[in-house]
């Protein structure tokens, strides 16, 4: 490699190249299917259009994925995010329904505060299991994943609770500065996380814990506190996501709210180039990954396939991304390429799907 790589070389080696290309490819497919796909129109001072819908719908996954990124950077995983989202929504909605003045702003604010405090506690519980009891992250969070939906149903008493509060539904359908409020919330959390991790030493410490917890502890990093913090943060993020989802439908169904969002979030993180082996993370990558997933969900019905089939496409994306990241697969493909120049192409196609 030359000392001063040219712009093109730097671009080609940039870790966000593949996610961005995949996103662009999806948008191109959409524009081919529906030429007016990218149109945005102004109505009553708000922006409307497919792109606006995509960024709004990406908010819950983005929120969960931001917390998940930090957890994965410490070589952990948080499977309980969907259950925590359901609990958060259940707490908020039952408090709104049970309040004296159901439609008041203070009711909505208090309900959301209670919900988020509950989620911070649940996140801290996960952190306790992982950092103090040293249980494997996948098992520690599995416990809450199993029990969480039961807890959420216990809170709503097994009913589908429908709150009636305009301020609360604004979380999902409201607009601020012509943009959807849900997306703004996700953006704010994204910006705060980025500043906290990249403008302070926190990000480096998290990566140090992910690379080798024992070595980082010996080097003076308080790895236990760091681990505890990232799980608590993940709980908080899932809680906000749960509120947005509940506000979107104005109801809580403890069984289905946030179902499989943990998988979508992990997918967003992986697409963004964060390694599941821990030790390095990219918040911008996660951001693009979440937008990619929301775009994919929009693309499937747009090109005339039933929207439920998007699981199939997600599977293809997971496999393609993992193959791209796996050094084993790369070496296999490289060996083949030196014989015949063919097999590298299917991988590129895979990610475009």
């Amino acid at each position, binding site marked *: 490699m030359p000392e001063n790589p040219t712009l093109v070389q730097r671009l080609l080696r940039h870790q966000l190249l593949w996610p961005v290309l995949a996103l662009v490819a999806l948008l191109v497919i959409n524009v081919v299917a529906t030429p007016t796909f990218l149109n945005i129109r102004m109505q009553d001072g708000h922006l409307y259009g497919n792109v606006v819908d995509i960024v709004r719908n990406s908010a819950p996954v983005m929120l969960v994925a931001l917390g998940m990124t930090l957890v994965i950077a410490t070589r952990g*995983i948080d499977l309980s995010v969907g259950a925590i989202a359901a609990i958060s929504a259940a707490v908020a909605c039952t408090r709104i329904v049970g309040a004296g003045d159901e439609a008041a702003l203070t009711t909505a604010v208090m309900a959301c505060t209670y919900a988020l405090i509950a989620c911070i506690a649940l996140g801290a519980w996960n952190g306790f299991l992982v950092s103090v*009891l*040293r*249980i*494997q992250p*996948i*098992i*520690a969070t*599995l*416990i*809450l*994943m*199993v*029990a*969480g*939906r*039961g*807890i959420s*149903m*216990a809170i709503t*008493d*097994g009913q589908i609770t429908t709150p009636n509060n305009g301020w609360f539904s604004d979380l999902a359908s409201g607009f601020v500065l012509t943009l959807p409020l849900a997306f703004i919330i996700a953006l704010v959390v994204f910006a705060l996380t980025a500043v906290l991790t990249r403008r302070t030493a926190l990000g480096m410490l998290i990566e140090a814990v992910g690379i080798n917890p024992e070595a980082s502890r010996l080097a003076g990093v308080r790895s236990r506190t760091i681990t505890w913090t990232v799980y608590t943060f993940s709980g908080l993020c899932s809680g906000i996501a749960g509120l947005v989802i509940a506000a979107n439908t104005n109801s809580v169904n*403890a069984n289905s709210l946030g*179902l499989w969002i943990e*998988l979508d979030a*992990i*997918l967003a993180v*992986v697409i963004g180039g964060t390694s*599941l082996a821990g030790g390095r993370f990219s918040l911008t990558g996660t951001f693009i990954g979440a937008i990619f997933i929301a775009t994919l969900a929009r693309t499937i019905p747009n090109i005339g396939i*039933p929207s*439920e*089939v*998007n*699981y*199939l*496409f*997600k*599977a*293809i994306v*997971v*496999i393609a991304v*993992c*193959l791209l990241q*796996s*050094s*084993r*697969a790369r070496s*296999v493909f490289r060996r083949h390429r030196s014989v015949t120049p063919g097999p590298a192409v299917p991988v590129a196609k895979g990610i475009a799907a």
Partner: protein
Amino acid sequence: MSATTVPAASSTWDRVKGYRPPSRFLPVIATLALFVGLFGAGGVRYEGFSDPQVLLSLLIDNAFLIVLAVGVTFVILTGGIDLSVGSVVALSTMIAAKTLEMGWSPYLSMTAVLATGTLLGLLMGLLVHYFDIQPFIATLAGLFLARGLTYLISVESISINDETFTQLAFKTIRFGDYYVRWTAVVALLVVAVAAYVLARTRFGRTVYAIGGSESSAMLMGLRVAFTKVGVYVISGFCASLAGLMFSLYILSGNSLHAIGMELDAIAAVVIGGTLLTGGRGYVVGSLLGVLVLGIIKTLISFDGTLSSYWIRIITGVLLLVFVVVQRFASRRQP
């Protein structure tokens, strides 16, 4: 613990007195004690709970979960995890329902179901072993793939009206006043075969060796690649077999079937005493784990005042207890 003397009850009194079960059986014995305790508590509290038919119904109602848990046990013993099994069950019910609707013979349809599950397992195994993709992610892809295929076949629910299927579903084996269905027999057979394979065959011993330490197993010259792919194939096969049994139980194919069933299966395996880090555990434990989960369900339905969501909460608490106890037990004996 009174249950500790059960395995040697038939020998002489001295040996009974001096008997201490090997520590590797302790988790399974704890689960057995829990099961007996729960059954006893139910028998004391509720009228008709101590009827043997309650136990047989437990087997019938959880037959598919037993088969599922057996498959997952193999994967977990190697230190992996299989998240796809619930979706494979849904896919199996859908393939069975759709092919029967298209007029396939029931046996051809069953073969198609089993072949699909096995093939999916093979694919995941290849991804895990040859491309170094974490089991968690590879089977996550499998989860999405199977669920997506299910939706691709049909978004609507399809009912199964085939005569062979309905006959199989309702056929009973009677012993006097009591009966079991064929699915329960199949489940117990699967447990027996799996226990034999794990304890007595080269393949089974390699499974434990990989769970203990994959690199050591490799250096010992064991067939790591074959075995590691093999456990996912077994898990896929068991999941599709469980799917067939589930379609007999519920007589329809639906893409919303079995959501979260992989969690039940994994929970049953953990409650059965298998270490999630691999290398230690028994399929009999998984059988007991399923029965413990099942008896909690039965207790709740006998009680009538508790809502069904308590099952999830209690399962979570049990998981917590077992995981924490395992954690401290394995710390004491490194």
